[in-house]
């Protein structure tokens, strides 16, 4: 093993950012680029940016260099996002109100039991909203075997996500008082949203197909 640094060593160290020494001066930039491209394919879990980060970044960028191309599209996008946020808020409020009514006709274990009441929502849940829910204080999550994941927020807003193409599924919310089964429904954009009135009672979540449990995950703090 030689101690001499050749162009390969120099390029690799530069691409890795591990070149704190003078050995990499004069590295072949084309070779460095090729190793940077290699590194760009090393698997890293992608993370959805939080709501508002895009607007913050764009505002900071425009403060440095104003846009010179009319941004009708961007303005339209902003309006759409704002409208979507409002729609989501209205939808959430509607769902919560509906849950109170629908809960009465949803199976909820034996009468007087502490099993929570719940129902599904037809809303498509965007990836950003899932990320925000997962990050929110008090949210608990679980892995549902290989079928997907579930996140349940402190106020009872839940979503099963990362579902592939699958037949309609029911969701079982497991509590000490029994299992509240809702659905079935087909995933919408890989997600099934639901609302539960007493999320703190839900210990685990099950996915059921044709009445049989196909996956189960114990909820744990995210």
């Amino acid at each position, binding site marked *: 093993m030689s101690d001499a640094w050749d162009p390969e060593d120099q390029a690799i160290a530069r691409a890795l950012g591990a070149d704190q020494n003078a050995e990499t001066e004069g590295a072949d930039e084309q070779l460095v680029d090729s*190793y940077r491209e290699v*590194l760009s394919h090393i698997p890293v879990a992608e993370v*959805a940016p939080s709501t508002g980060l895009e607007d913050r970044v764009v505002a900071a960028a425009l403060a*440095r260099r104003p846009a010179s191309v009319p941004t009708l599209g961007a303005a339209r996008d902003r309006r759409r996002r704002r409208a979507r946020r409002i729609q989501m808020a209205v939808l959430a409020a509607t769902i919560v109100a509906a849950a109170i009514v629908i809960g009465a006709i949803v199976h909820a274990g034996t009468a007087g039991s502490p099993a929570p009441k719940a129902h599904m929502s037809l809303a498509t849940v965007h990836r950003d909203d899932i990320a925000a829910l997962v990050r929110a204080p008090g949210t608990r999550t679980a892995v549902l075997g290989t079928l997907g994941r579930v996140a349940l927020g402190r106020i009872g807003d839940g979503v099963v996500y990362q579902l592939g193409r699958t037949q309609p599924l029911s969701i079982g919310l497991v509590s000490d008082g029994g299992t509240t089964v809702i659905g079935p429904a087909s995933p919408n954009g890989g997600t099934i949203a639901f609302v539960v009135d007493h999320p703190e009672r839900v210990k685990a979540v099950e996915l059921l197909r044709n009445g049989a449990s196909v996956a189960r995950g114990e909820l744990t703090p995210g």
Partner: protein
Amino acid sequence: MPEDPPDRQWHRRLLGGDEAALREAFQHFSPAVLGLAYRILGSLTMAEDVVQDVFVRLWEQPERFDPQRGPLRSYLLAMTHSRAVERLRAEASQLRRIDAAGRQHGRGPQPDPTDALVMQETGAAVRRVLADLPEEQRAPIEMAYFGGLSYREVAVALAEPEGTVRYRIRAGMQKMRAALQAEEVAP
């Protein structure tokens, strides 16, 4: 090196000061940029700061990206890596970084807080080769790349001679590069 046509379009539009191009680039690349920054820094707040730095820089100096030299994704991730490692080195002492990298060694990829795992569709060959690399080659590459360690620091963390570390990193990186090149020329 194959060129991704949207990269050239983004480049032209960014040069022209098109805000919508910045937003599109952000929407397309920010999950990967944020994921890498978070993996290195372990803090979402700091990682989001890096994301802001990267995209502001892209907007402010779009001429620094040359589509002929490689894809926009690898340009942004290289900048992300550089910024994140700078912050990591500023935040943590050398000893703490070596210790952290040593403890992380062997644990493999860390989970992200959102569980929103979306892997790249391209570069599968690199990932296969990385997964198949012997531990003695994979570990120092990951420690240098994700831990922000120099070869000397990796050597300290692994209690190996620096020359051995350099040799192993080189061997692993060359295998991944060969795999990527083979994938790029494949029909």
